[in-house]
């Protein structure tokens, strides 16, 4: 039996194998048989084997977490050091297994993948994304988790890249990667700020997060940047515009690779760092911002004419709701919501990809179509916590935790209600679709696995998932309590608060079901795609945030152009050369003028020096006898005087 200390290398090797398989498929997939899907499946199996070994080892140790850290940049334990390591705990194991299950469902939709222009990119994308999620959740420190998030971004990029050769799809893929990269860069910046006064940022060692100096401004800046980066990764409002842009990639593949997997990876950092960020006082504002984003996302989703765009908005709202639950109710309840989003959302997306307007209503398809609609409904039940599914308990305990403050509880309930409304509208719209794209039974039924995984009994040990006070329907130990050290025990909550919250939640759910049906019928009755105007169009376009951002970037580009024009063109290529040329010519002209004057002055002086004796000598040569006699007598007198003096 492999023990926990022996597993880190194996875990990393398993993830690396999955990554390598994805890379090989990306580069040589076209030459491999079946576009390399067998290699992708081998990655799933290897990862499954490795995580099964982890499960066994954890069970042996009573599900106690174990970690191994190493210095990466700087020595471990040193302030400002960047350390990496592996954290082996049941939460990480659970999420990694969820990711593998989601990938298996996607791979089993082989017909769907083969319809893409470049199927090998899809297999590679999902391999990268799964490896990224697993890496994020086994990471001991944020740094390796950031690499995991980066891998999921890469996966999303390649998934959209199946259609890169179309300009519109290329633009969409670029927008996706710019947004996600920006979030990642911000998160890294934030972690650097936190690392300045801390030794390692290890999630296995809470002491590594404490500082001697207490909270300083740099900590706040670091924490805000980290949260901002994670916020961007989850794509809430105002980063919603991308999710509302249509794309030819099938719903299942797009939802998984661009929203669900990156969201799962991001929650690794959020959940693990939550306690520390709460101590800094940063988490509560983050939670309120996320709640506000729910309102905007649901608004935008309700006005979408295409189902898949509405679903993109709903996924965004789902992650926002989960983040808010994490802030206001703790990681245990947030985890149950996260499980619902991941499993239920994928099931719904899978069914939506099977049901399609391009399909047929042939007799052979009818039973498959029926199953697809049922599973689509079941998927939404998984995601929203309809009876027997995991999120129910999370929602109820969240509301009951705020019951003493009616306004706050009402706001929570309203946000949840809005989120449920949109979800059920989408589910009802799916149920109205009769056409089925030609897919085999395995593709239609694979969401069953996810729905079963999403049952409350699998996560909370009780049939209703903590929806009844005191858990009388508990049949097994609660996995979530095990993950989070006994949190989410219903016994600690006041019974009146619990009953009130429970009533609020179930009422919201029933009303959302009914309202969703009505909205879906209204949408179905419109024969033409609705032509939105005014406010509705504004909302449907994601509140035109992207347009504003585009304008901002164009302004920056214009400013940049003017700076280049001013400095590079005008100063360096015109003024400086002209100025230098002018200065040099003027100085040269001045020097020439001085030189000329000097020369002429010299010449003049020289002439004068020469002229006088020359004139005298000329007198001697002019042939005039009186001058000869004058010089002769004169020289004689001078000689006489000289000798008389001496």
């Amino acid at each position, binding site marked *: 039996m492999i023990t926990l200390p022996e597993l880190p290398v194996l875990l990393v090797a398993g993830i690396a194998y999955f990554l390598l398989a994805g890379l090989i498929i990306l*580069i040589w997939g076209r030459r491999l048989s079946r576009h390399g899907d067998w290699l992708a499946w081998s990655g799933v199996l290897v990862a499954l084997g490795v995580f099964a070994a982890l499960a066994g080892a954890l069970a042996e140790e009573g599900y106690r977490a174990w970690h191994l850290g190493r*210095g*990466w*940049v*700087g020595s471990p334990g040193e302030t*400002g050091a*960047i350390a990496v390591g592996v954290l082996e705990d049941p939460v990480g194991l659970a999420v990694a297994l969820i990711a593998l299950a989601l990938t298996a469902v996607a791979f089993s939709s082989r017909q769907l993948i083969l319809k893409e222009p470049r199927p090998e990119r899809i297999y590679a994308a999902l391999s990268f994304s799964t490896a990224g999620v697993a890496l994020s959740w086994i990471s001991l420190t944020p*740094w*390796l988790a*950031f*690499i995991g998030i*980066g891998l999921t971004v890469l996966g999303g990029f390649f998934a959209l*890249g199946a259609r*890169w*050769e*179309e*300009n519109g799809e*290329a*633009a969409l*893929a*670029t927008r996706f*990667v*710019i947004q996600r*990269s*920006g979030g*990642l*860069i*911000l998160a*890294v*910046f934030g972690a*650097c*700020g936190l*690392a*300045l006064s801390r030794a390692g940022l290890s999630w296995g060692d809470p002491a590594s997060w404490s500082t001697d100096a207490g909270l300083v*401004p*740099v900590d706040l*800046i*670091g924490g805000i*940047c980290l949260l901002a980066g994670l916020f961007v990764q989850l794509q809430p409002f105002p980063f919603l515009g991308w999710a509302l842009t249509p794309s030819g990639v099938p719903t299942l593949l797009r939802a998984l690779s661009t929203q669900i997997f990156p969201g799962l990876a991001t929650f690794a950092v959020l959940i693990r760092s939550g306690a520390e960020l709460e101590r800094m006082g940063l988490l509560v504002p983050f939670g309120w911002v996320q709640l506000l984003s729910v309102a905007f996302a649901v608004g935008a989703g309700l006005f979408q004419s295409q189902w898949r765009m509405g679903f993109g908005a709903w996924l965004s709202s789902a992650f926002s709701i989960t983040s808010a639950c994490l802030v206001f109710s703790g990681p245990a309840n947030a985890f149950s919501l996260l499980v619902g989003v991941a499993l239920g959302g994928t099931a719904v997306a899978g069914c939506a990809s099977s049901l399609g307007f391009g399909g047929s209503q042939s007799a052979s398809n009818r039973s498959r179509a029926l199953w697809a609609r049922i599973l689509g409904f079941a998927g939404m039940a998984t995601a929203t916590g309809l009876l027997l599914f995991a999120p129910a308990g999370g929602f109820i305990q969240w509301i009951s935790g705020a019951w003493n403050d009616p306004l706050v509880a009402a706001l929570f309930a309203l946000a949840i209600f809005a989120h449920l409304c949109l979800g059920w509208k989408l589910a009802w719209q799916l149920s109205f679709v009769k056409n089925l794209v030609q897919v085999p039974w395995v593709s239609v039924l694979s969401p069953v696995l996810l729905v079963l995984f999403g049952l409350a009994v699998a996560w909370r040990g009780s049939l209703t998932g903590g929806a009844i006070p005191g858990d009388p329907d508990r049949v097994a130990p609660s996995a979530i309590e095990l993950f989070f050290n006994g949190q989410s025990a219903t016994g600690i909550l006041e019974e009146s608060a619990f009953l009130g919250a429970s009533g609020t939640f179930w009422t919201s759910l029933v009303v959302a079901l009914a309202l969703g049906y009505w909205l879906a019928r209204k949408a179905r009755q419109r024969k033409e795609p609705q032509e939105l105007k005014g406010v509705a169009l504004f909302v449907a376009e994601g509140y035109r945030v992207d347009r504003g951002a585009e304008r901002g*970037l164009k302004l*920056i*580009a*214009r*400013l*940049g*152009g003017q*700076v*280049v024009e001013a*400095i*590079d063109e005008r*100063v*360096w*290529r015109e003024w*400086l*050369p002209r100025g230098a040329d002018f200065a040099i010519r003027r100085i040269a002209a001045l020097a020439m003028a001085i030189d000329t004057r000097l020369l002429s002055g010299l010449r003049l002086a020289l002439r004068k020096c020469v002229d006088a004796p020359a004139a005298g000598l000329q007198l001697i040569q002019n042939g005039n006898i009186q001058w000869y006699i004058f010089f002769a007598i004169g020289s004689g007198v001078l000689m006489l005087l000289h000798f008389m003096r001496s």
Partner: protein
Amino acid sequence: MSQHLITLMILLPFVGAILQAFVPNPPGAGRWIALAASVLASVCGVALVASLQGQTADLQAIESLPWIGSFAISYEMGIDGLNALLVLLVAIIFPVLVGYEWNQKLGRRGVHGLFLLLQCALFGTVCAQDLFLQFFFWAFTSIPVYFLVAIWGGEERENAAFRSLVAASIGNALLFAALILIYYSVEPHTFALKELAGGRFSARAFHLFGSEFPVSGVAFALIGAGLALRIPVWPVHGWFTQIAEEAPPSVLVAFAGATVPVAIYVFIRLTYALFPEILSSASGTIMAVGAMNLVIGGICAVAQRSLRPLLAFVCLGQVGFMLLGIGSLSSAGLVGAVYQQFVVGLGLAGFALLLGIVIDRVGHADFMSGGGNKGERSFGGVAVRAPTVAIVAGIFIASLLGFPGSGGFVGNALVMIGSYSALPGLVLLAGAAVLLAAYYLFTMYRHVFLGKPRAEGAEFKDLSLRERALILPLAASLLAFGIYPKPLLELVRPTVLTLLSTVK
């Protein structure tokens, strides 16, 4: 032999440059001699770095000979944690450049000879421990660059080459003035770095036009100004953008990938060793200049529609990052800046080389159409025809942006951690600039590599075997040093800590 490894490393390219120029038939022999000389010199460099003892700040592989005794100028060479990575950088880049110009039809011997001379000069600059000797090699680097641009450049090559020579000459003149000032400020006069270190002349002053000026302050300003004209520091960078537009890709690589990091090394070496007390008060200014480079470089890059000036402004931004680390006066910041010299050098070198290949294949550098940019010419869909080019370009972009797992992440993270303690506001500005960098680099990537393939790129082929041999090692190095930076960091840290102890 091992005692004279540095001299061998410097002499081999010089001898190779002369030999390959004069070797008679066959015509191809010259390039093999050039490659052999460059590779052998690089092997010496790698052997030198590999033989360094870690965990020590002492100068190693010291070679010392009197040169011009009457002026106390000596041939003094040595290697420590501060210059080891630069030796490695130059050792990696120049054989690649010689290989890149393998099939140069016009004056191949000239190109190879000039690259070898540049390699010799850069090795000399990096290893010199005597100020005069360092200046000698450093000033010499501007000459091969001039000829490389002036002869093998684009349409306005003479202008670009002349402008770069003028800027370099002014910079060198200012630097030389500083050296002379320092030389005459100490008794006995000397150029030796180890004797001048620690601010020996900090209390000295000189008189000019009836006023007294502190030697260290004036010398620091002269060195800063002189090197600012050789590194692209905004706003005295105009010559660099013109070089980027006119120089052949290999020359741009030599410049952006090697000469610029060496210039920054000279700045670190001189300022930290000679002006510790001035550095404490000037650190804010250095960081501000760095932040300005980052921000303005980013804003200008957003406006670019052509690959060459885009690369120039990317280089400007990366220089800003390094200046941020240098000015932070923290161990993390300075280690990060030194590490950044290496990875940014590799990243810019590889990226410039790759873009050069792309430009050569397509025939122009305009990746975005419109806006008065030579009509509708643009790229598109290169990834379809050349997937290797696309993947490798992605790796270089990831490194330049500092994505975790790439070489650039380690340097960026350390610079950030170090700079936070000094001026957090500037770090936020730097962060905004990096976000802008993500926008313009990925936008460029989309226009060049994604989308519908343009008809004019129909003949675009993927990397040849020779090109893969040149570029893939650069990309692989970036990934390798991003995942496992420890050996290099352990070389750098002790020297950095020793330098910082004199400042603090």
